[in-house]
């Protein structure tokens, strides 16, 4: 019973993450590289609800399925998304595991967002564009990562609290 519940929960989370990931690519933005990374809310929530392995699985699955849905599979955007997402979940997993007393969901989300952007920029430099000039974007990307990481962390916090409340309300 518990296993089935876990499986269905994870399936729901993955579906939610894919939908958010896909929907976000349709948001119009004037600044090309700027994304909110709302799908990371689900990754963070999975980390807190189920642990690191499942969070990694959700994130990777979300990136693969999401890129299939948007038709960007195998494109540079996909590589950037993969490198960013993986490093973000790794950083968040580390912080969650060893520093969960010091940092709340918001802090963990912030670190994840910053690592996401840094890794993405590094990947862009290594794979796409061997020009030192794009590294000038790093401070700007870190600044936006603080803002989006904060917003996502808040959202994840409410999401996690809500799911936990659901768990205590329903006796199974």
């Amino acid at each position: 019973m518990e296993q089935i519940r876990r499986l269905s929960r994870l399936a729901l989370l993955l579906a939610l993450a894919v939908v958010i990931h896909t929907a976000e690519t349709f948001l119009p933005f004037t600044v090309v590289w700027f994304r909110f990374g709302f799908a990371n809310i689900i990754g963070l929530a999975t980390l807190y609800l189920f642990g690191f392995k499942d969070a990694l699985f959700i994130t990777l699955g979300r990136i693969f399925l999401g890129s299939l849905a948007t038709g960007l599979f195998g494109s540079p955007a996909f590589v950037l998304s993969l490198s960013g997402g993986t490093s973000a979940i790794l950083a968040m997993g580390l912080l969650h595991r060893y520093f969960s007393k010091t940092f709340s969901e918001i802090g963990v989300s912030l670190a994840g967002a910053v690592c996401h952007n840094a890794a993405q920029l590094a990947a862009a430099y290594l794979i796409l564009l061997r020009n030192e000039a794009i590294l000038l974007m790093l401070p700007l990307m870190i600044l936006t990562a603080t803002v989006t990481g904060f917003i996502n962390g808040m959202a994840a916090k409410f999401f996690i609290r809500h799911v936990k409340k659901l768990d205590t309300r329903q006796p199974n």
Partner: protein
Amino acid sequence: MKNQLLTVGDKLLIAAILAIAVLLFFILPRLLVTDGAYVEISSCREVWRTYPLNRDVRFEVPGPLGKTVIQIKNGRARIVSSPCRNKICVNMGSLGQEGGVLVCVPNEVVVRIGNDRVNGLDAVTP
């Protein structure tokens, strides 16, 4: 609210990240934006020495007739004096980022502005 929104660690993390961002904002341009241009001095048909264009310096280049004095100042290089007869090289003016060549034929001194940039493109979008 029962539990506070941000822990102390969170606040410190935010402060640290912002501090790093601001620091990088000022440091990175200095590290990365070197204007890439250098001054290549040739004497008697071989490269004698190269200098960065962004550092003020004044030096003498030996040639068959004597010493040609070259000055780099405020990102521009020019031949200040030359032992040659017509002083064409001295009257050629100065070179900056735009590139170009100053030549003193009698003393066989060539001043050339080189650039590290491989092609004229800033970036290529995928």
